[in-house]
């Protein structure tokens, strides 16, 4: 049985239970539903809001270097802190935070396998108290651009056989039957997918309890659709968050050498005048 390529990026709920108070460990909850943290969270965990704290709130972009330094500093995180991310819905937005932290070069950031769902289901300790940590100094020292894909790169990748595009949205979004998941705003003008993209919905990487599938199962899932490690893989979804989950799986659990996340995703491509679309 194969093991994960980078098991050091994943911790169990048990590990978090034992290490959540370690001074060099900071647990951070990042939820799709930003109200979940207030219901109760892991003692000592800080909560980050993906809508206001993990993006540029003026122009469409990831968090700026300056704002990331402020966010980490105010969370008591230094460059040497081990950051443990967890969240609701199979760690959907925990992966979004991890993608950004890895782009900004934080060396030790991990995901709690199973996320919030598993912690609750196991009846583990919760609190409503927000922790107060002393201000720390955090300095971003670089930016890994290779983890991110922009429109021009995707346009080139579409016609380059060394690349494979992975559309991780639902099949109904992929085929253009719907423009957005039920209950969410339709933020594109056209439905469908980027020509040539393979459809592997992101949540297929998870078990029912929210944990990641085994390396063997993940390998079978992606290689069966032609998403293989010899290719340059570009993952995308609607706004780049579901695809950051797939980016994590391919990069760290399967160890694919070249994986990037196209965070412009369908809300960019599906609004472009004249862009090629397949259904």
């Amino acid at each position, binding site marked *: 049985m194969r093991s994960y390529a980078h098991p050091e990026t994943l911790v169990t709920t048990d590990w978090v239970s034992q290490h959540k108070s370690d001074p060099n460990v900071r647990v951070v909850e990042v939820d*799709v*539903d930003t109200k979940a943290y207030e219901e109760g969270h892991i003692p000592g965990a800080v909560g980050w809001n993906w809508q206001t704290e993990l993006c540029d709130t003026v122009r469409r972009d990831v968090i700026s270097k300056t704002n990331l330094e402020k966010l980490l500093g105010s969370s008591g995180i230094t460059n040497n802190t081990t950051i443990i991310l967890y969240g*609701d*819905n199979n760690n959907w937005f925990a992966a979004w935070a991890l993608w950004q932290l890895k782009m900004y070069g934080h060396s030790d950031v991990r995901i709690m396998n199973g996320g919030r769902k598993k912690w*609750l289901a196991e*009846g583990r300790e*919760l609190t409503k108290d927000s922790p107060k940590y002393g201000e720390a100094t955090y300095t971003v020292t670089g930016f890994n651009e290779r983890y991110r894909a922009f429109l021009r790169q995707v346009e080139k990748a579409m016609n380059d056989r060394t690349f494979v595009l992975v559309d991780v949205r*639902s099949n109904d979004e992929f085929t253009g039957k719907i423009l957005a998941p039920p*209950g969410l705003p339709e933020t594109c003008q056209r439905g469908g997918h980027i020509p040539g993209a393979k459809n592997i*919905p992101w949540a297929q990487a998870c078990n029912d309890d929210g944990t990641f599938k085994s390396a063997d199962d993940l390998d079978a899932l992606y290689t069966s659709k032609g998403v293989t490690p010899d290719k340059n893989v570009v993952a995308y979804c609607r706004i780049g968050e579901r695809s950051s989950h797939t980016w994590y799986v391919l990069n760290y659990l399967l160890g694919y050498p070249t994986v990037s996340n196209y965070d412009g995703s369908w809300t960019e491509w599906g609004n472009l005048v004249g862009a090629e679309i397949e259904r």
Partner: protein
Amino acid sequence: MRAEQYQTEQRDLAGIPMRVESYKIGDRYYCHVANVDPGATLARTEGGTRAAAIDAALLKVANRLGGKSPG
């Protein structure tokens, strides 16, 4: 405190598969409804009983899906 009596079930609401999670924290019951794919939250509610929390959540979902009746 801890989450107690954690339950999750799948239901079709207005023709859309939804995951309905409910549990008790302290003396309150919480309910969270998200679509199965991709898992976007449609309602998060609380109540004095599990049934009250779930009913409130289902009502919110119905309103959000344009007044279609859930179930």
